[in-house]
């Protein structure tokens, strides 16, 4: 049949790659090569469409595009590329894209070899029975060692690399080999068009004109405008108004068939009615069983997010709700702080996830927010026998009420060239990590396995690891469980008052050092003010570190004549604006980024 013949030419795949290994560049080249966009229309790295992603060179949100490729066998293939993020925090997003595919391209940098997160994502793909097509990229680099990397892929992952494409996405070398491999190696989707509709929602978002749009993979059956559909998770029903494909812009089509990837809009007003992971079916002829959806993700890091100006509270809530819709990993609930007023305690997958959300709130919603020190989730056994969970250090009971505390431990794997094993071990030891094992991937590369308290990982571990290994080491971790630990609350006093937003929970042995570092850091980030300000760190009400911000001595414009007046007024207005952006803590003005800055130490200084 025509539809079956067409389906045999469909290839749904994702790209798995470590950050910087050239995923976006390869995607660009494939788009170019298949003539989807002319070179002139190409915007570099077309799939990274959030500003933030472009700036950081990473992909966070999924992007999908269709490519038409005429292969050497003269068959015209329909490729659906579903982009994936490359950072450890976003494994959840990866599993979402993978569930919509039959295969995945694995891109490995010819100079750097396999990285920890790549490996983690490959395992995710193997779990879902995906066909993995390895590709070695960046063969143009002088430091490229494609032969060794090829062997590494064979040995470590166990993939057949006999005719592995060796490419340079940057120069456009051998891109056709990749396209051929996709056509030949990745299986066509299965599914029967006459069966009841079963489609997986792998992304959803709000469009001002069309309402909620769900990106779907049709597993069984077909979907077209006019049809009444049912969301199996919520039970809600909608009439389909449009279905279409991505090229990479949305293009309406008559219908999407089993095996297709595309979008559907159905006058859905709330994004929560088209949840990611939900199964869409035909309301009149429903399928019996929903698709498995995704593994539920649990936040590992919590922090407070507060509006800089109190009246924005509702706007922050609206924004968080909107972000939550297609980011199930984000959780939040209202809380209040003596220093910051009313805000939200928010849970994230990791620090990068937190930072990304913070920036998205500011950029996409034009909100001015304050973020407090991140915390992991601690378990507390109280002396009265009660078990409680602490996400916010401020809520920690008094010492005498605590029987014992437990903290989350993660299993971390760190992949690195052997040269950096020493510095990595030193770093891990300083972070209370327990060494588990070390494996050689090849002569010059190893994987180190450690159990590390998550509390230590969120304090700038990743950046420090990167800087100590010149960017060569990569990190992946997952939650192992909880472990009893000697933890204490460290308070920070500014001008003799405890500022709840700065309180953190630390291991007792680390408290003195951390207290000193935070006090020093705050001394740097809080600008001098009209009076001297003591900054103190306190442990169980005892002061353990002290710094003083000296009073401001000078803020004056020396020259002010006829031509300077308009300019001077502008400068003063700007200064006034800057002051507004400060948070009033008692009678001290604290810059908003101070709340997060206290966590970023350059330990090597």
């Amino acid at each position, binding site marked *: 049949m025509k539809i079956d013949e067409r389906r045999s030419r469909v290839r749904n795949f994702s790209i798995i790659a470590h950050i910087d290994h050239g995923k976006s560049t390869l995607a660009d080249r494939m788009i170019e090569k298949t003539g989807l966009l002319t070179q002139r229309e190409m915007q570099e790295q077309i799939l990274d469409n959030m500003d933030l992603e472009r700036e950081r060179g990473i992909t966070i949100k999924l992007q999908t595009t269709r490519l038409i490729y005429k292969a050497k066998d003269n068959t015209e293939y329909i490729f659906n590329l579903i982009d994936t993020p490359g950072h450890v925090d976003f494994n959840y997003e990866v599993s979402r894209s993978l569930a919509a595919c039959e295969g995945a391209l694995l891109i490995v940098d010819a100079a750097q070899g396999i990285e920890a997160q790549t490996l983690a994502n490959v395992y995710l793909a193997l779990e879902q029975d995906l066909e993995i097509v390895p590709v070695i990229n960046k063969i143009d680099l002088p430091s490229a060692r494609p032969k060794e990397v090829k062997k590494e892929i064979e040995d470590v992952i166990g993939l057949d690399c006999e005719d592995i494409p060796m490419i340079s996405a940057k120069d456009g070398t051998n891109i056709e080999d990749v396209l051929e491999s996709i056509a030949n190696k990745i299986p066509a989707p299965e599914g029967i068009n006459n069966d009841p509709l079963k489609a997986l929602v792998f992304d959803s978002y709000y469009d001002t004109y069309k309402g909620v749009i769900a990106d779907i993979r049709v597993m069984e059956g077909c979907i077209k405008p006019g049809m009444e559909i049912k969301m199996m998770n919520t039970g809600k029903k909608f009439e389909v108004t449009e279905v279409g494909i991505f090229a990479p812009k949305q293009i309406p089509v008559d219908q999407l068939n089993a095996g297709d990837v595309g979008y559907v809009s159905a006058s859905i007003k709330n994004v929560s009615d088209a949840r990611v992971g939900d199964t869409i079916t035909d309301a009149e002829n429903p399928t019996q069983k929903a698709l498995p959806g995704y593994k539920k993700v649990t936040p590992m890091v919590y922090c407070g997010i507060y509006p800089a100006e109190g009246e924005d509270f509702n706007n922050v809530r609206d924004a968080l709700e909107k972000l939550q819709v297609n980011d199930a990993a984000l959780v939040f609930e209202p809380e209040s702080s003596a220093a910051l007023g009313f805000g939200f305690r928010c849970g994230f997958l990791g620090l990068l996830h937190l930072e990304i959300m913070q920036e998205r709130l500011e950029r996409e919603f034009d909100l001015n927010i304050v973020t407090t020190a991140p915390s992991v989730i601690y378990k507390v056994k109280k002396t009265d026998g009660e078990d409680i969970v602490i996400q916010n250090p401020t809520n920690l009971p008094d010492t005498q009420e605590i029987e014992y505390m437990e903290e989350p431990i993660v299993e971390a794997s760190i992949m690195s060239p052997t040269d950096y094993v020493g510095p990595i071990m030193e770093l891990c030891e300083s972070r209370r990590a327990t060494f588990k094992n070390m494996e050689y991937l090849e002569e010059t590369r190893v994987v180190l396995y450690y159990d590390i308290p998550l509390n230590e990982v969120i304090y700038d571990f990743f950046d420090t690891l990167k800087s100590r290994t010149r960017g060569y080491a990569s990190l992946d971790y997952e939650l192992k469980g909880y472990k009893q630990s000697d933890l204490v609350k460290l308070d920070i006093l500014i001008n003799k008052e405890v500022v709840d937003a700065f309180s953190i929970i630390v291991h007792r042995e680390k408290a003195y050092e951390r207290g000193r570092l935070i006090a020093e850091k705050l001394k740097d980030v809080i600008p001098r003010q*009209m009076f001297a300000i003591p900054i103190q760190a306190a442990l169980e009400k005892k002061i353990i570190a002290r710094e003083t911000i000296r009073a401001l*001595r000078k803020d*004056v414009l*020396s020259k*002010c004549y*006829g031509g300077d*007046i*308009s300019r001077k007024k502008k400068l003063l207005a700007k200064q*006034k604006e800057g002051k507004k952006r400060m948070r009033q803590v008692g009678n001290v003005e604290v810059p908003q980024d101070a709340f997060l800055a206290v966590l970023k130490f350059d330990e090597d200084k």
Partner: protein
Amino acid sequence: MKELGLYIHIPFCESKCYYCDFISYPNKRDFIEKYVDYLIKEIKMQSEKLKNYKLKTIFIGGGTPSSIDAKYIYNILEEVYKEFNTTFLEEITIEVNPNTIDEDKLKLYKKSNINRISLGLQSSDNNILKRIGRTHTKEVFLKNYKLISKYGFNNVNVDIMFNLPKQTLDDVKKTIDFVTKLDVKHISFYSLKLEKGTPFFDKYKDDKFSLPSEDLEREMYHEGIELLKNRNFHQYEISNFHKKNYKCKHNLLYWKVKPYLGVGLGAHSNLFSERWGNEINFTNYFKAIDDNRLPIFESEKIDKNMEISEYVILGLRLNKGIDKRIFYNRFNVNIEKIYKSQIKKFESEGLLNNFNKRIKLTERGRDISNRVFMELLT
């Protein structure tokens, strides 16, 4: 008849000092003749609207006005005298670089009725002068200062800078000592500020160690003020000092928010409840005048509230501060009524004194005056 100050901009110099962000072009000297022609045309255009004003002061600044032929200065002033009411003209200042002055120029300045000379010395240390891009030495300054006195210019200002790269407190004191031993009547004592677009900005913005610390900078300022006071120089503005009866009348117009007209490239005016700035490049400036338009680049209407806050911000730069009665007569409202809470707050913080007749900044208030001004700006 209302009083008016006139500022004339000469956007040429011999070479750019490393800290300078004024509109001045060392490499466009071919334009001088044409520029002066157009400047004269602009003066004519402006003067037509100002027939009921009487000129009180003229200030020729730059750039380096002494770097162009003195005949141009003569011609420009001749035009001014022809077009404006000069019956009450009291002060005519020209800025002079110690390197670009000679007897012939001084003779013509005298003939042009110039009666005040402002000399840029900055420092009496030749190494520092070199470091900041000045082309003269202490010796050249001294020689030409004597020449200026010889030609009967007895109202002389000298500019001194502090907070310069690698400058010590002692350097500053030596410079003040050197200048105050001469018979100068006025000293401007400026702290270096790094301005965007200058070589110094790029060089020092991330180099905290070559510039004096904030503490040393204030020490230079306060000890400088003390030394100047001992030598009979009275501070009357944040950076300005005078011997008895020799305040700069022109600059006082700025701080008292009185009308002034600026002519020439980038010059600013404050007249008819409006502040405006002229075009800052030659092409646009010439084009406007060719089209018989005023060469205005940007302007801002000043309503009464804005005028009040400008008056307060600029008036508090003066050591005398603001005379409450003069304020009331000008704005028909009591200053304490408008700024009640601010005055109270600043007084309690030791930044401001509220006397019966006047309001003025304390010494500490002057040090951090931007903090005060910021909250007085509407």
